[in-house]
């Protein structure tokens, strides 16, 4: 039996009077690719932020990889993010004056210690072996996103979070990035939570949940679609 890597019970997040996420019960088994869909303001990003330890819930329970995130101190949460989570954003958030390999090494630095050979190898794995010394401004959108993927997986996360990772990419680049993610997942066996508007991108997942106004309205497995 595969254990759940994420388990939430009555997970709630309110900002003052506004309830971004209403009590939510979700279980995500280890190694699953979960797509989270919904229109703007439906609570997708709030859910991702909570699961990634970037935000704290207002109520309910949240366990990720056996860690009760509500019980963790700020330091504990930082360690959890460092060692457990990899994130890919729609905006790449690459440091513009560092090269591709240095951007990846920066993630290593915040995790532990930098290791250039490993960073280089990670970039080679995402097909950027020839662009190691290029700065983000010299890379296409798809290449930048691949640097982000190398940066996200360099610390061997158990959970990879994607917040509209292909939102800024054309169709061809989107396919390339998604194929890459699938290949890496099969090698590294991490769990993926992908927040997206795009039905086609969501279809790459094993399962899709739909949020509307902070409420889980639909939960579909890939084979049931």
């Amino acid at each position, binding site marked *: 039996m595969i254990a759940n890597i994420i388990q939430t019970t009555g997970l709630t997040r309110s900002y003052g009077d506004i309830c971004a996420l209403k009590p939510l019960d979700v279980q995500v088994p280890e190694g699953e690719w979960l797509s989270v869909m919904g229109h703007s303001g439906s609570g997708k990003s709030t859910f991702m932020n909570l699961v990634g330890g970037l935000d704290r819930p207002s109520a309910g329970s949240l366990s990720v990889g056996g860690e009760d995130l509500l019980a963790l101190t700020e330091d504990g949460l930082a360690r959890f993010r460092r060692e457990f989570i990899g994130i890919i954003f729609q905006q790449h958030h690459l440091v513009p004056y560092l090269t591709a390999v240095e951007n990846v090494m920066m993630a290593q630095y915040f995790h532990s210690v930098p290791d*250039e050979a490993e960073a280089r190898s990670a970039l080679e794995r995402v097909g950027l072996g020839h662009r190691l010394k290029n700065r983000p401004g010299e890379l296409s959108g798809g290449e930048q996103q691949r640097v982000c993927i190398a940066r996200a997986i360099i610390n061997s996360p158990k959970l990879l979070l994607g917040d509209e990772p292909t939102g800024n990419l054309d169709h061809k680049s989107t396919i390339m990035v998604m194929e890459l993610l699938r290949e890496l997942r099969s090698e590294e066996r991490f769990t993926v939570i992908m927040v997206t508007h795009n039905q086609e991108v969501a279809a790459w997942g094993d399962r899709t949940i739909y949020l509307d106004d902070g409420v889980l309205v639909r939960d579909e497995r890939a084979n049931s679609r």
Partner: protein
Amino acid sequence: MKRLPRLCWNLISSPFTCPSVIGIFVLVYIGIAFITDDALIVLMELVRRNGILVLLLALLPIASLARLIKEIRCFRSGYQISTGDPSHDGASLFDEAVELETAAPFDGIEETIRTQGYTIRKEENRLAAWRGITHAPARLIFLLATLCLYSGIFISLIFRTSYRGPVIEGEPMPGLSQDGGIVERIRLENGKGTILSKRLTIDVAPSGQGGGQASFGIYPPGLYQGSFVYPRYLGIALLVRFSAPDMHGTFEKHAVLNMYPAGKEAEVQIPESPYKLVTSLAEPDDGLDPYITGRMVFNVKLSKDKDVVLSGVLPGGGELNREGYCIAFPDYRRMVLTDFIQDYGVYFIWGALSLYGIALLYWLPVRVFFPRREMLFVRGGINDMVTAYSRTEGRERSHNSLFHNLLDMLDIGKIQPGG
């Protein structure tokens, strides 16, 4: 090797031996320092006289020689391993050794290694890669220098003999042998070097023992009949002639006086009389060094018991006659008070200092710019396991990172064609 000799060898060649021996000497020094203020001199004297301490001191060069031999062997083994001699198991010579159960060929990692600037030697089941220059020669030179230093200290401390004598113009060279050549000339000149302010030359005629013409300076000291000629102080050899109204006859004596530079006083006691002559070189009006120019004028002070009875100025070769007293310096010659030192340890110490310099000159650029980094991958054994070795003499983080990455590539077969 038998057990006892091996134990002895291990003890002697251990890196702890020399520090331990030095530690013992430091403890002895501290002990002596509690008793006397001249601890170093007492310790040196003690070492010369005490058999156990002599043996202990002898252990220093012996242990450093053993260490040198051991490290040469080690260096040779390392070289043989990296050049592919399969008879050597090198686990102990490397920093890291890992076994991998993988069937991946070495071809896949070859290009990655090569792109990092490593040179590769590949055989059927073996891949050795290296980069940079080994600092082993510097290490060996350092150990050789240490051996020389300890040997020099030992020889110098135990076997040094020295004799101090005046070298006087026109007189034979003093020394242990009675057959020294005649000192033809002593010359002192103002030096132009950054270290020495004076240049001294002692010219010696051939001696009866077959020694040829010789000339000695200040530094480096020359060798005369097996002894270093080590000039210590300058002075004048004076022929002193003295008569007083209450003395019978005239006193005449050659006196060797340590009276350089001008103004420095030296005494001549007139035997069996209450008279004492105190003399010094007078400061010349032209400001030139009288020892250099040879124009010597002497200040003279004659005292009887505690009273000064006569004082005046006396040119070299001149005479001072007053109140019945007569003082004359009919002959005066330059003199160098010299130590004749038989000590071959000095060569070793000079050699050691030079070798330390060479070792540093080699080590520093190599360590900073081209540190040696080595990897070795060997396939073999029961399950066709790959054993990987790595060692580095600098920039270990980047080397280790590459090494670990190569292991990852071999392990999970993440080898991409063409790197």
